[in-house]
């Protein structure tokens, strides 16, 4: 058995003929697929309800406290120009950007609304902090339970050590991997059966840095948990800093999502999507092996 499928040593159809048409491997086991989709759902709901919560006070600060009279990291508001035109204004460290239609001022049911993020990306679409909070906390618990379940399973099944932690050889080849990614070259054959080094590092950073940061900064915004675990305030430099970090890390997770989707599309969207639904993944044929001149 020489097959090194990503989540499983088991191959569905090992190459039996001299010229295999397309090798299909069992790439993602059931637990990975379930937790992946549950995680995707949680992150989507958490993002949209989180933006709803942000809209209740569309300003960010640094330190323990912050409201209108304090220095702002970010603001999103509607304003009027000298000529009386309503505009959406976003400020980042005092730098002003006109963001009419997107941030600060956007349309809701054909009316202009003074709101940080537009209706189409908040949950619920209308301004409703209490409902946003209900969605957010329910899916926060689901997200944490799913993450813990995945983490424990991955530890015991050696998913982390086998599939995610880069090998020394992986790390040595990081330069080449960066070049491959930049040139949009995707691995084929044997190399496509395992995660490449940038993929491994990206997943590890998301799993062990970004997602835990979201949970911890979220906890730091709770006055109850600040009493129980005041260390959180020390780590994140106060409740308002935690709120700002929570917002920024959410942005990094969105960035990861965009790159993730681009990579899926470049690597063959249907094959990739199928592998995360049924587990079965068709290995892209090795160019050398199929090259008639080879």
């Amino acid at each position, binding site marked *: 058995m020489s097959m090194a499928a990503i989540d499983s040593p088991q191959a569905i159809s090992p190459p039996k003929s001299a010229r295999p048409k397309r090798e299909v491997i069992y790439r993602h086991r059931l637990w990975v697929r379930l937790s992946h989709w549950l995680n995707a759902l949680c992150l*989507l*709901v958490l993002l*949209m309800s989180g933006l709803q*919560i*942000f809209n*209740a*006070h569309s*300003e960010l*600060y640094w330190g*323990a*406290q*912050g*409201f*209108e*009279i304090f220095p702002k990291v970010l603001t999103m508001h509607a304003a009027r120009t000298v000529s009386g035109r309503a505009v959406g204004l976003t400020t980042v460290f005092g730098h002003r950007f006109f963001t009419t239609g997107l941030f600060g001022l956007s349309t809701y049911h054909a009316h202009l609304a003074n709101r940080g993020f537009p209706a*189409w990306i908040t*949950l*619920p*679409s*209308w301004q*409703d*902090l*209490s*409902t946003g*909070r*209900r*969605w957010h*906390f*329910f899916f*926060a*618990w689901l997200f944490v339970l799913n993450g813990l379940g995945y983490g424990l399973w991955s530890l015991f099944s050696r998913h982390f050590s086998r599939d995610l932690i880069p090998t020394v050889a992986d790390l040595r080849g990081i330069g080449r991997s960066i070049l491959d990614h930049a040139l949009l070259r995707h691995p084929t054959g044997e190399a496509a059966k395992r995660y490449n080094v940038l993929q491994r590092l990206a997943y590890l950073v998301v799993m062990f840095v970004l997602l835990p940061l979201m949970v911890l900064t979220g906890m730091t*915004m*709770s*006055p*109850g*948990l*600040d*009493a*129980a675990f*005041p260390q959180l*305030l020390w780590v994140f430099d106060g*409740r*308002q800093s935690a*709120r700002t970090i929570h917002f920024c890390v959410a942005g990094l997770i969105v960035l990861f999502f965009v790159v993730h989707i681009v990579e899926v*599309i470049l690597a*063959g*969207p*249907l094959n990739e*999507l199928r592998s995360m639904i049924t587990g079965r993944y068709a290995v892209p044929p090795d160019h050398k092996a199929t090259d008639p001149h080879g």
Partner: protein
Amino acid sequence: MADLISRRAALIGGVGASGLLLSGCDQLSHSPSVQRVLETAATVNYRAQRLVLTANGPLAPEFKPADIAPTFRVNGSAYPGTDDYKRLMDTNFSTYRLVVEGLVHHPLSFSLDDLRKLPSRTQITRHDCVEGWSCIGQWTGVQLGLLLKAAGLAPGARYVVFRCADDMGGGNLYYESIDLADAFHPQTILSYALNGQPLPVAHGAPIRLRVERQLGYKQAKYVMRIQVVDSFARLGGGKGGFWEDQGYAWYAGI
């Protein structure tokens, strides 16, 4: 070519699906049964925090005088314009009486001077609004636990309700409630001073509740009566507070 078509199909499918998802999410936000399911998280939040936040449990962080905000942000009611309240203001609150009643052995009544003569606690704490902002101020007042011990809780006492003077519209007076773990917490005070000055009207004169391990809407202003009850189901909208009746969680430790 086939790949191109399938990519386009996937894209169109994706955009269509997200549109459906959006309107679907709004439908779910309107559905009372879905919202009841989501509300279970509020109970989990409460139970989880009560594991670590007991009556004798940890204190909310306290700050240095230098941390006090230049002005304390005014939010919610800034002036209860009722005739009763105006009469209290006219006497500079000398006719004010704080009543402690309900499931207690000895119902009590305190003037503002009575409360000021009792042992006081001063704390510099961070006020966290549910909207997201925070403001640090110094509060001085009498511990609620002290009054409750003096009144003596009767069997069945589970919650402490605060009936306030501010009219939230249509004669709906503000009210709030907390459990006994928070009621007997040392930082839970009935404050009569903010930043060393008598509590301003905009901040709840003459008495504002401080429950430092919870969010701003629990910090009831203009407290007139304290009722000890076994359940708040028959009060107001039945959810234990004005904002709770509008859909906010009763336990606001998060």
